[in-house]
């Protein structure tokens, strides 16, 4: 089971997927990948949990990652 924490004004919301070989799981993974891609295209950054710690990540979406987080774009001022 993997998940994305989508940080927003609600605090965060969670999108989850499973890696079982079913149609439903494939659809969940496709949706999760789409969210990550869309957020990146709009300037957001993604972090992933590695050894229990979140690090900024530029690699393509990997369904085997335990947890992603979408990090807001930043601006000065």
């Amino acid at each position, binding site marked *: 089971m993997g998940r994305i924490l989508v940080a927003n004004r609600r*605090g965060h919301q969670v*999108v*989850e997927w499973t890696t079982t070989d079913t149609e439903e799981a494939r659809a969940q993974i496709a949706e999760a990948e789409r969210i990550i891609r869309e957020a990146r295209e709009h300037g957001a950054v993604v972090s992933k949990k590695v050894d229990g710690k979140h690090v900024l990540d530029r690699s393509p979406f990997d369904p085997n990652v335990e947890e992603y987080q979408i*990090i807001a774009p930043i*601006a000065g*001022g």
Partner: protein
Amino acid sequence: MPPWWRRLFGGWRHASDIITADDGAVERPWLRRWEHLPKRSAGLGFTRADYAEARRRAREVARTTLGEELWERLQSQGYLDLPSRRRAGLTYRLRVGRRIEVRCAPGTRSPWPYDYLCINPAYPLPEEEFFAQLYLYVRDDEERILRVAAPQPWDQALGRTF
């Protein structure tokens, strides 16, 4: 929206809405424009209960993001220091909901004319959630901090967090 209400009017939801683990549609803030919002606001229609719930959830995720050790340190001292990886002697002091304070060891020259860096999220976020995100930026992508930070002569609360 309560589940029974959503079941009743589920057909009104946009087909592209994404469903979360707790069965609510995910708000994707990168798709909206937020310039019109008053400072330190989440927008119209956000109730006191919404703010309280958002802050509670933000606290959870900030704690997870930082890990127990950093979280405890933040709670006890009220800030986290991160030494620069690019400039020896320079330290970023991060505080929840405030500008970053730039601290220089004796003999170190700051790249900025002022000691406070104003950096906001592009959309409104609870301040503890953004704190954890800013921590990741400073630690893992200092280049971006150097590029976007707006140096300011005084400390102040951030305008885009609440």
